[in-house]
């Protein structure tokens, strides 16, 4: 994939310095995480932050992958479960940047990797559109 990224984001920044797996800034560019026993990866450059999951409010007639909405840092985020198991509570939310106000439900954040070969790579645009 052709990318014009000069610096990969630091996982420690995303987590407020809480978790260790931060790697050198020149190599990786995917955030890897687990959800419902599966591994997923998302372009690290579209990740705004990782937070503890606040209370999630259900919405009427949700698309299959949408767990609901949750207030995070003053904004309302649409919470998406990439494993399509929206009723299973998650430990963390991976907040995505941009005006989509999307968040990915995650059970465990594995770290930032260069090659997401063993994970399903997610395109945030496709997640909500189904």
């Amino acid at each position, binding site marked *: 994939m052709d990318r014009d990224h000069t610096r990969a984001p630091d996982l420690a920044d995303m987590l407020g310095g809480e978790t260790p797996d931060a790697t050198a800034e020149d190599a990786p560019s995917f955030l890897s995480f687990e959800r419902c026993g599966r591994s997923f990866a998302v372009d690290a450059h579209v990740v705004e932050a990782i937070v503890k999951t606040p209370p999630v*409010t259900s919405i009427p007639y949700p698309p299959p992958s949408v767990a609901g*909405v*949750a207030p995070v840092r*003053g904004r309302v985020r*649409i919470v998406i479960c990439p494993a399509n198991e929206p009723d299973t509570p998650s430990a963390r939310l991976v907040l995505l940047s941009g005006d989509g106000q999307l968040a990915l439900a995650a059970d465990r954040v594995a770290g930032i990797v260069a090659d997401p070969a063993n994970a399903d790579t997610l395109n945030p645009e496709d997640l909500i559109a189904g």
Partner: protein
Amino acid sequence: MDERDLLRQFVDEAEDLVESLHSDLLILSRDPVGGLRPDVLNRVFRSAHSLKGVAGMAGVPSVQRAAHKFEDLLDDVRMGRVRPGPTTLDGCGRVADELGRMIAAVADGADAAAIERDADAVESLVAELRSGAAGAPEAATEAVIDLDEKIRRTFTEYEEHRLQENLNARRPVYELRVAFDLMSFDVGFRGLLERLGAAGEVIGTLPAAGGDDPSRIGFRIIAATNEPQESIDSLIGTLGGTASLISHYPEPIVEPPPEFPADGAGASTAVSVRVDMGAVDDLVYLSRGLALDVAGLAASAEELAVQVGMPSRELFDLKQRARSIERGFSDLEERLVEMRLVPIGQVYGRARRLVGRLAAELGREVDFVTSGEDVRLDKAIVDRISEPIAHLLRNAVDHGIESPDVRRAAEKSATGRIELIAEPRGNRVALIVRDDGAGIDVGAVRRAANAQGLAADESIEAIFAPGVSTAGAVTEVSGRGVGLDAVAAVVAALGGTIAVETERGKGTTFVILLPTTLVMLSVFLVEAAGGLYAIDVNQIGELASLDATYVERAVQATPADCGHVVEWRGESVRLYRLAELVGSDAPSKSSSGVVQCVTVRIWDRDVALSVDRLVGEREAIVKTVGRYMPVLKGVNGAIDIEGGRIALLLDIPGLIAEHRRLWTAAGAGGS
């Protein structure tokens, strides 16, 4: 910044520029006396120029090309190389409309080839405007001007043109010499230019010697004005300067044309900054979040104070301080929300051109009258209501106003009248579209409604119901039903209402009532299926308690797709369980044998929603759920509730529509 951010920034800026084009063209169209106002014409030129620039930066060559052609035309007009004809302004408005459509197409990701074709259309339109315009005017040879030739040679082409235009208009031209203190000259100089701009026109300014005092800086200003010379002498005299009349004409000046209105636009000194709407919303949310935190903190502090036995005087002070902070946040919120408001007059220019063009095409004579241009509404509302307004105006010209012959035969003035009015009504705004045309055939609407299976006693407002505006009904109601359901849908989605009054032969009035803003809203909170939901109080008719046994019988007797039929105040009302509407199969709760309900006005009728609990009313800040909100059915936003929770603001018509759709789909699948 990635490509999408760049494109979004372009669309934002380009939309602003097109809005400026429209509002300035409207000012020009209203003030044709004495020619086009040069300051406003300059602004129009600059907007087109800036549009070309931002399109180039964002890599949108089609818009860049179209704006460039428009800019060239405007430059020739402001320089006097092309003299505008009677249709030039209207044509410029059409160009601005086209540019607006191109930008919307870019925002929607439309096919580049199609947008290129739109640019071709703009180019053709500009060429057409050029061919309809006159050539350059003849210079005023009879005027004599006492101005040092060296100074005149420093004039730009534009300044020279403006000097000539003022001489042609026989407006007295002055050379003013004035000096200001070096430390504050910018303020004094700007103030003087504003004053002169309001009284006439500043043609040019040049630095000049400030006299012997090195702490002063001098200016020479060439200005034209019809103000009496004594006023100019007095104005400059108070600044310690001199004014000399430098224009002379062979004969005395008779009846000078009226001066430009002093709207502060004489010299561009506005201090403003572009702020992303999302950033303003973030500040509103932050303010509301802090207010809720303060309320929570105050409650905890009060509990603690009571526990430790704080004296009542100190406890009172504590509460007062907490309330003061809450009031401060509330004021902050209101001011931030006001930043989202823009004058509704933004859509009037387009409306005027639409009515003018349609009237000409259809052979109608129409006097189009507007008022309330300054009434302010949330920008998001103004953006979305412009098409419904255009729709009502199209109907008014096409089907309301009769042909001049028909009007004369009906002993009416051959010229029809269409009004577009905006007026504040409490915390809402009424937009009124009124015509004095043929009126709507109410009987025909009822027959059309019946044909669609609606009750026979439906009022004229059935015209807004989906289905009445089908092709079969169009002929009978003279087309007045076409698309009115779409108008009503937009109004409802904005939390507004629409009503119509009509009288055969006298005319029709549509009244759209809208909230001022989509961000700050009075909502009523209800509980259903374990969740907390908010309903815009302006949509609520009343709160009611129905007998639980009676409701249960009604639920058993009628299917849920179109609501269960209950009798309420002597009328049949459709009742929906809110829990069902939000997709929950949780059983309804009732206490003391009653079911709590709210009635909500939808289209022309009330529907009742049964809920588990009526919580209460509050002022709320409505948060958007972002770009993908349309994917979520029946949700218009979210509001913060104490304890870090949120309540969904419901779009009741959207919920009912989705409920029916799923019910029908399930039925179809089952059969």
